[in-house]
């Protein structure tokens, strides 16, 4: 809300406090002042009179003027079309600050010019805020002809010297969007008296009326209506149009201005109808009106069920709480008006306002909530101003539908509880002082304080804790001490999942991968092209963009698109990982039952995943001939190494040829990871079709279910006895068909070798020269070991022969 300090000063004295200090004190008490701006930036502007005005000899539009500024007569060149002899003008003297700079003495095409004649725009007034009748939009401003020349306070007299505070109250303090309530708050902060010009009951006067008011909806629980006759439209009083101007509201005429002015004062949006448009003198608020309706802005809106509509004789007369109707508006010849001061449900108003895209001041105020007494206050004040400034008379009695349903909140707090919650030693007298300043009417009994809360604070102050907040925010937090909670000692620790995440992070970092955190919301492609998608994708109802529309059910698209981004920026070696939950839709069979318990099932599936992507080189050390090009085997080793560190060695984990997803993975360079017969992951080369979508090549990707690893009972550390007897290693090179798998050879060799063979590994695979096409040479390293003696050759030889025989027999291997 824009607050004019001058206006504020009319309720509570603030003009003796520096405006920045004032703003600080208000902010520190919890009502944030976001900005402080002068109404006009202009300095050294005086009133003057054009006493001579001749065309410039060297220009077809400039005037050469002599301007009387009281103390002297200045030569000034002016280009405004309305510049002429005899008018009273605003003169910026040499050295004056205007919106666009400083005025200097100069010579314009040979004629001296010592100052400038101004329009209000040059003083920093916005074009849409120019007063009625102003010439400033096309020329210089013309002042009334009785203006005294040389008045140095002319801007002040025109109401243009003021400070504007941009006040941004938190949602619980919507009351501060009304000047009267804001003034009460400032009075409490400064500990100063506040005078509110509310004449309680002023509107109660009035003669007989035919007016009838109804509501058929609970969303309009209270409606005050009143007819005021013999109203005379005309300009507003100067003070009112100036204050409205300062608050950013354009002055129209006295009647319209009064409705706006009272809204700013009380927070209550008012609406005035031309009584001629309501011959039945009947108003019914409904929420089941349907059809097109043209509002004050001239736009026709389609109203639907649920919108609150003011009707008269069954016809729409206004969109309640949002905007009045074109057919019932005040005209220049209006004489009788019907005043509406009503309460409309904040949710209903917000709904209609959002649906129609019609964000009006009235709608915003209803949506934020009103003082329950605001209708009464506003009616009293509006009638008073209409009588004083629009010659309103022949008033009819106020008609009330419903009531304001208001009883003041009474809140009880003890000093023990207050100091106990805050950890303070605030004295009873200090607390009572604050509560008095806030008009909470504190009654003290021992250390117990009973407060009666003013109507405009009734939404916010209901509980003892609310009283505590009021007390400490006004006293200030500066004396609050620093202590730590004194409660039972507890053992802080990470759970298994959190620990596992840290292990993964440490492993990945040590192996050269960078951790990314990417967006949960992905696009259509990403949500339909993933590794082991957890379930059907979940869509958000109103996404910011198509790129971020679906909750990801796999991490694959996030990592691949990050690779694509980096490749597009000429970063080629991109090796990344991400740890994140993914989600899948999983509607429940049963409806949700409230209140809920934390153990209730959720209507979605969730799983923590690790995604890994490799591309380019993992290590680059050309000088030492040690660069590591990523491929299937690098990915495999990385994942197996990780699984081993997490407690899952090769005996527990099975890698199985991938047959379940050959759309996103290379059908011959990918495997699934199995734990206890369940698929818990997949990795391998990315399918060229998917690479093509992201415009990337040679990408290896893996994704693993981390929850399965946490819950899969990982092995702990086991120490084996060191063998006292040396082991012996024998190498064996064989040629087999190319499709024979290394793992099968090793397993067969080990099984044929029996218990003295402790391990069989492949240390070389060769195809090419000297090996027939379709065949490969495989070199095995077989380690023999016994725990009770040193093995001798004549023990090993028969075993080695048996292994060879087996490989020859099973795989038609040929020993080299």
């Amino acid at each position: 809300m824009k607050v004019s300090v001058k206006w504020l000063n009319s309720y509570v004295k603030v003009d003796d406090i520096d405006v920045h200090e004032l703003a600080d004190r208000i902010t520190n008490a919890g009502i944030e002042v976001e900005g402080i701006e002068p109404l006009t930036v202009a300095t050294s502007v005086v009133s003057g009179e054009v006493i001579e005005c001749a065309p410039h000899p060297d220009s077809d539009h400039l005037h050469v003027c002599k301007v009387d500024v009281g103390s002297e007569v200045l030569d000034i060149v002016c280009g405004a079309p309305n510049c002429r002899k005899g008018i009273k003008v605003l003169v910026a003297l040499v050295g004056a600050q205007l919106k666009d700079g400083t005025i200097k003495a100069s010579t314009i095409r040979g004629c001296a010019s010592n100052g400038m004649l101004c329009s209000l725009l040059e003083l920093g007034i916005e074009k849409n805020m120019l007063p009625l009748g102003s010439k400033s939009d096309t020329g210089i401003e013309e002042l009334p002809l009785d203006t005294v020349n040389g008045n140095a306070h002319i801007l002040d007299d025109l109401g243009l010297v003021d400070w504007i505070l941009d006040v941004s109250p938190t949602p619980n303090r919507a009351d501060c969007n009304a000047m009267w309530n804001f003034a009460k708050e400032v009075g409490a902060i400064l500990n100063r008296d506040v005078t509110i010009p509310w004449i309680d009951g002023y509107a109660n006067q009035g003669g007989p009326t035919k007016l009838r008011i109804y509501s058929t909806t609970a969303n309009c629980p209270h409606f005050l209506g009143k007819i005021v006759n013999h109203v005379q439209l005309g300009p507003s009083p100067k003070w009112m149009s100036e204050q409205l101007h300062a608050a950013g509201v354009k002055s129209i005429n006295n009647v319209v201005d009064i409705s706006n002015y009272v809204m700013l004062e009380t927070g209550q949006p008012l609406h005035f109808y031309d009584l001629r448009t309501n011959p039945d003198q009947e108003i019914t608020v409904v929420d089941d009106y349907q059809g097109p309706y043209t509002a004050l802005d001239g736009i026709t809106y389609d109203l639907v069920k649920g919108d609150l509509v003011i009707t008269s004789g069954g016809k729409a007369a206004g969109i309640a709480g949002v905007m009045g109707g074109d057919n019932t508006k005040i005209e220049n010849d209006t004489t009788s008006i019907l005043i509406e001061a009503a309460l409309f449900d904040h949710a209903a108003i917000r709904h209609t306002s959002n649906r129609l895209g019609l964000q009006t001041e009235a709608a915003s105020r209803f949506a934020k909530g009103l003082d329950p007494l605001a209708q009464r206050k506003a009616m009293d004040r509006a009638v008073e101003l209409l009588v004083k400034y629009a010659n309103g008379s022949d008033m009819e009695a106020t008609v009330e539908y419903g009531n304001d349903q208001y009883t003041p909140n009474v809140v009880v707090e003890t000093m023990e509880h207050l100091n106990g919650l805050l950890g303070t030693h605030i004295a009873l007298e200090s607390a009572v002082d604050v509560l008095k300043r806030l008009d909470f009417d504190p009654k003290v009994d021992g250390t117990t304080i009973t407060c009666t809360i003013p109507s405009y604070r009734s939404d916010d102050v209901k509980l003892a804790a609310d009283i505590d907040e009021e007390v400490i925010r006004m006293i200030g937090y500066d004396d609050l001490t620093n202590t730590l909670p004194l409660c039972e000692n507890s053992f802080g620790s990470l759970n298994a999942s959190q620990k596992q995440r840290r292990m993964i992070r440490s492993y990945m970092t040590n192996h050269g991968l960078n951790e990314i955190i990417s967006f949960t919301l992905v696009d259509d492609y990403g949500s339909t092209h993933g590794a082991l998608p957890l379930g059907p994708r979940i869509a958000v109802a109103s996404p910011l963009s198509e790129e971020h529309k679906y909750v990801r059910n796999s991490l694959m698209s996030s990592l691949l698109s990050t690779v694509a981004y980096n490749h597009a920026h000429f970063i080629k070696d991109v090796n990344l990982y991400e740890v994140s939950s993914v989600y899948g839709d999983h509607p429940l069979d049963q409806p949700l039952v409230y209140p809920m318990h934390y153990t209730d099932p959720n209507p979605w599936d969730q799983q923590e995943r690790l995604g890994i992507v490799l591309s380019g080189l993992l290590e680059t050390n050309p000088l030492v001939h040690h660069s590591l090009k990523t491929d299937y085997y690098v990915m495999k080793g990385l994942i197996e190494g990780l699984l081993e560190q997490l407690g899952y060695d090769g005996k527990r984990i099975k890698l199985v040829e991938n047959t379940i997803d050959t759309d996103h993975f290379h059908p011959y360079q990918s495997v699934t990871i199995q734990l206890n017969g369940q698929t818990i992951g997949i990795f391998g080369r990315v399918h060229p079709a998917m690479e093509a979508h992201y415009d990337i090549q040679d990408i290896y990707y893996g994704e693993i279910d981390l929850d399965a690893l946490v819950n899969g009972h990982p092995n702990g550390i086991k120490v084996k006895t060191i063998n006292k007897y040396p082991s012996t290693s024998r190498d064996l090179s064989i040629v087999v068909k190319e499709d024979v798998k290394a793992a099968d050879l090793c397993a067969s060799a080990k099984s044929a070798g029996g218990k003295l063979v402790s391990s069989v590994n492949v240390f070389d695979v060769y195809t090419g020269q000297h090996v027939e096409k379709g065949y490969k040479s495989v070199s095995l390293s077989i380690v023999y070991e016994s725990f009770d003696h040193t093995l001798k050759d004549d023990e090993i030889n028969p075993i080695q022969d048996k292994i060879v025989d087996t490989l020859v027999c099973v795989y038609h291997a040929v020993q080299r």
Partner: protein
Amino acid sequence: MDTIETVKQQGLSAIEQANDLDALNQVRITYLGKKGPVQDLMKIMKDLSAEEKPKFGAAVNDCKKALAAAIEAKQATLKDAALNVKLESEKIDLTLDGYHPHNGSVNPIQLIIEALEDCFVGLGYTIAEGPEVELDYWNFERANIPHDHPARDMQDTFFIDVNRLLRSHTTSIQMRVLDEYSADLPVKLLCPGKVYRRDSDATHSHQFTQCEGLVVGKNITLADLKGTLQFMVDAIFGKGRTIRFRPSYFPFTEPSVEVDMTCHNCNGKGCALCKGTGWIEILGSGMVHPHVFEMAGIDPNIYSGFAFGVGIERLAMLKYGINDIRDFYTNDLRFLEAFKRFN
């Protein structure tokens, strides 16, 4: 006797002249071998008288020892020299690049989360997490933000349907764990996680990270909150910062406060970072609202508690001097690799 001395001098001279180990070995064979001059001297001995024999024998032995010692000394010298030659031949260019095992980097968001976790685990807190797809019930209802509460405007939320949404704050975790621990108090929790709001510019990302803390027990005070937050600021930004409270509003706390820290850039003197105020806003917090307790089945007359919530990206931006929140989510390697260091 002269003969012995001559042999000795000739031998020493030959040793002196030997330039390498082979030559020296040849000298050893020549002089100390079975057919060498020293052995020849022994042959003379049999012709000597009984008195002369011991004298002569001792002198020959001395000669033998002297030559052997000289050979050994020369051998050591030659070995040294040979080693030096070998070493010199192994000279390399020490300025060429070393072998760099490629270090990865931890995400800056994660660095801050881990720092907070470590700080609060040390204070006996448990780390609690919860779902990012969340029910309106836990995100809003239980946080004292019923339908059509004006505070819902503060958080433009990604709704999925009438019941489900993407959580708009980690308060939803607090509400779940409060329910879980309602019969098992006191409790001290830290709740980090991703949150989502329909908002996007240089200071807002539609996804960001929060970390909330919650302590519930008997006699927990606002002063305890301040002490705890001071502890946290010390842990993240180093000692020497002070914090201050300003009144604020959150539906789930009462009283509610915004927390400022003395600017770590200028030590509170005022600079561009703190817009000249000397203070930097770092988080929001307050005492748990009695309604929140009641909904969790906790008696607010017996228990009290505090809660705080901090934006992780904001802390990271302050700590590492990052200007645009979107940098966290672009995942440009040139950005990520800055976080290779341990500190």
